[in-house]
């Protein structure tokens, strides 16, 4: 059973952040595996969008926000992200 929910993943990154590219890679990988066009992602450069980052309560990068909420203040592993997304999308 699925719902019509959309999920926007925001990967919060900063320059010189060693793990940010890995976090982006992880997100791309999970989206590809899910093969669900209801999931989108964008990279948010924290310095360029600092007001938004502060409003999320961000303290460090990388981190993931889902639909405008800081769900993963530290990057999840693949299984955790996948599970969270499937729950949000209503995939059982």
């Amino acid at each position: 059973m699925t719902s019509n929910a959309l999920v926007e993943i925001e990967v919060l990154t900063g320059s010189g952040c060693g793990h940010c590219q890995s976090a982006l890679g992880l997100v791309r990988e999970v989206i590809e595996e899910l093969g669900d066009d209801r999931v989108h992602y964008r990279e948010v450069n924290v310095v360029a969008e600092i007001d938004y980052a502060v409003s999320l309560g961000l303290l460090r990068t990388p981190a993931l926000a889902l639909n405008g909420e800081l769900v993963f203040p530290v990057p999840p592993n693949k299984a955790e992200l996948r599970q969270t997304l499937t729950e949000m999308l209503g995939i059982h």
Partner: protein
Amino acid sequence: MQRIGQVVATLCISADTLRYYEKIGLIPEVSRTSGGVRLYSEQDLSRLRFIRRAQKIGFCLEEIASLLTFREDPQNAKAQVRQLAHQKLTEVEDHIAELSTLRDELRLLTGLCRASSEGCPILESFDEGNNTRF
């Protein structure tokens, strides 16, 4: 009771300023020793601390005088003074909100700086054209 020299040292207000506050009635006439040396009571010190805090936030002496009246007798303060106190309360709350955002921003930037292997995001944020906060 504290002598003027002690108050100067504790509150970082000059002796001239303390005498001026008394002259214009911002604090009531301070008691004196038999030799004429000013002695400040705990209540005087409390008023002086309030004056200092209010000045730091940017209130003028006239406003502070009204706020002190309100502070002395909040129940019977005149409508005008109550209104000023309310208006200043709003200003203080706005000020706190601004400071809180600034604190969160600096917290984030210092966190990024610590974790960054190349360059410092704090410096980058100075260069951001659309960032006018700094």
